[in-house]
C-alpha cells in the first residue's frame, strides 16, 4: 500500500500543496490531469527523482520519503521507455538484477520468464534502436518489474503508441494486473486508459486532488 500524506513540492514558480491519496495493495490507480498539472511531478516525487518540500510517503508502512531512488523498490516505466540504448534487450531486462549481483543463470532465468510474460522472447538479443514503440514499452515494463518491486509507476506509458498497439498494451497490462496482482500508479491524460485499466481514478486540477 502506498500512502501520500500532505505532500508538498516546490520548484520555482510551480507549487503543489497538501497532496493526499492512498493506493491499496493490489490496486491499479490512474492519476489523471491536464498536461502541466503536476501529475508527473508527483510520480517523480514518489520515485525519489524529485525533492519534496514536506509530507510523507509511506510504502507498506515504511516512510520512503528520505530514501534514495535506489532504495525505494519502486518500478518505473517512463513515457518514451527510456531503454538503455547502449545495451541489448536482455541486458535491459536483467539490469536491476545485475546491479543486485544475481548469478548469471538466475538472471537468465528471470529474463526468460519476463520475456514469456510480455511476449518478447523473439527480441532478446536485439538492439534497442530497431524496436517499435510497442516493443519498447513492453521491454520498459519488464525492466521495471524484473526485481519484484513493491510498487509500479507508469508515466504516460501508452501516449506515444498508435491505436492497435495501444489495444495490445491494454490487454497486456490487464493480464499483468491479474497475474501479478501489482500495485500501480499510472499517470495519464487519456480517459480511455483510465476507463479500461483503473480500479480507482484520482483527478488532479490546479495542483489539488479533486
Amino acid at each position: 500500500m502506498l500512502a501520500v500524506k500532505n505532500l508538498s513540492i516546490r520548484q520555482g514558480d510551480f507549487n503543489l500543496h497538501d497532496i493526499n491519496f492512498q493506493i491499496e495493495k493490489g490496486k491499479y490507480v490512474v492519476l489523471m490531469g491536464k498536461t502541466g498539472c503536476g501529475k508527473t511531478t508527483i510520480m517523480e516525487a514518489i520515485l525519489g527523482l524529485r525533492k519534496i518540500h514536506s509530507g510523507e510517503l509511506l510504502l507498506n508502512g515504511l516512510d520512503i520519503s528520505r530514501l534514495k531512488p535506489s532504495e525505494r523498490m519502486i518500478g518505473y516505466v517512463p513515457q518514451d521507455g527510456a531503454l538503455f540504448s547502449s545495451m541489448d534487450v536482455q541486458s535491459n531486462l536483467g539490469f536491476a538484477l545485475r546491479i543486485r549481483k544475481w548469478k548469471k543463470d538466475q538472471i537468465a532465468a528471470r529474463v526468460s520468464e519476463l520475456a514469456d510474460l510480455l511476449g518478447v522472447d523473439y527480441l532478446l538479443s536485439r538492439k534497442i534502436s530497431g524496436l517499435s514503440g510497442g516493443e519498447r514499452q513492453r521491454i520498459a515494463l519488464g525492466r521495471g518489474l524484473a526485481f519484484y518491486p513493491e510498487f509500479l509507476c507508469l508515466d504516460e506509458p501508452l501516449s506515444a503508441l498508435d491505436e492497435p498497439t495501444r489495444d495490445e498494451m491494454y490487454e497486456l497490462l490487464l493480464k499483468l494486473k491479474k497475474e501479478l496482482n501489482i500495485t500501480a500508479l499510472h499517470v495519464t491524460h487519456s480517459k480511455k486508459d483510465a476507463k479500461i485499466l483503473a480500479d480507482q481514478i484520482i483527478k488532479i486540477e490546479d495542483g489539488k486532488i479533486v
Partner: protein
Amino acid sequence: MNKGDLPEREKGKFRPKRNWPFLLVMGIISSTYILLIVGMMYADLTFTTPGHILEALKSEEIQYATKLSLITCTVTMLLSLVVAIPTGYIMTRYDFPGKRLLDAILDIPIILPPLVIGLSLLILFQTAPGKFIESHVRITYTVYSVVIAQFMVACAFAVRTMNVTFSQINSRQEEVALTLGCSKGQAFWMILLPQTKNGILTAGSLAWARALGEFGPILVFSGATRMRTEVLPTTVFLEMSVGNIEAAVAVSLIMIFAGFGVLMVVRYFGNIGFFKTID
C-alpha cells in the same frame, strides 16, 4: 479562397521575386572563403617537394620536435579528457549557486590571447605555491611546461565539447537506472558514459589538434630551446626566423596532415556541437 474570389486588381498582378540573385550572393560570399582555405593548402603543397619534406624529416632537431609534439599532444589529450568528463558531467547534470560564473570561467582560456596565457603561467609559477612546486620538480622551460601550456587551452575545448555532449543526452535513462538500484556513480559509468563515446572521441581529437598547434603559451612559458622544448610550431618559428622557408613549410605540411587526420576522425564520429555535419 480560389482565384475567382480575389479582388479584380489582384488578379494576375503578383509576381514573387526570383530566388537566384539571393542564392548567387550567398554562394559567392561563402565560396570566397572556401577558395581561400583550399588556396592556402594548395600553395603549401606546391611550394615544397617531397624531397624537401624528407630532408626536413632527416634533421635531428625536427625529429626531436616531431616526437615531442606527438608525445605532449597525446598526454595533453588524455589529461584534458580526464578533466573534461567530470567537469562536463557536473556542469550539465547539477544546478548549484555560482554555476553561471563557473561556466564563464571555463571559457576564459578560449578567449584569452595565447601569449597572455603563457605569461600568466610564468607568473603563476613565480608565486609561493608555484615556487614550492618548482623547488621539487622543475616546470618552467622544461617539457612539463609544454604539456601544461598545451593543456590550459586544449582542455577548455574538451570541456566545451563534453558539455554539449552531456547536455544533448536526456537524463531519463540515468533516472530509470537509479530506480533500478544504481548509485549515481553506477548510473554514470554504466548508462551515461557508454552513450558519450562519440563525444569523447570528438573532445579528445579537438584537444589533440589544439595542443599540436599551440605556440604562443609554449614560447613564453617553455622557451624555444632546440632539442629541449622544441615542438613543431616552435620549429616553424625557428626555421622561419633564420630564413629557411622550405623547412618551415615542410614542417607545416606535417602538421597540416596530422590536423587533417584529426578532422576526419571528428567529422566521422562527431555528430555534436560546432562540428555537426551538414546532413
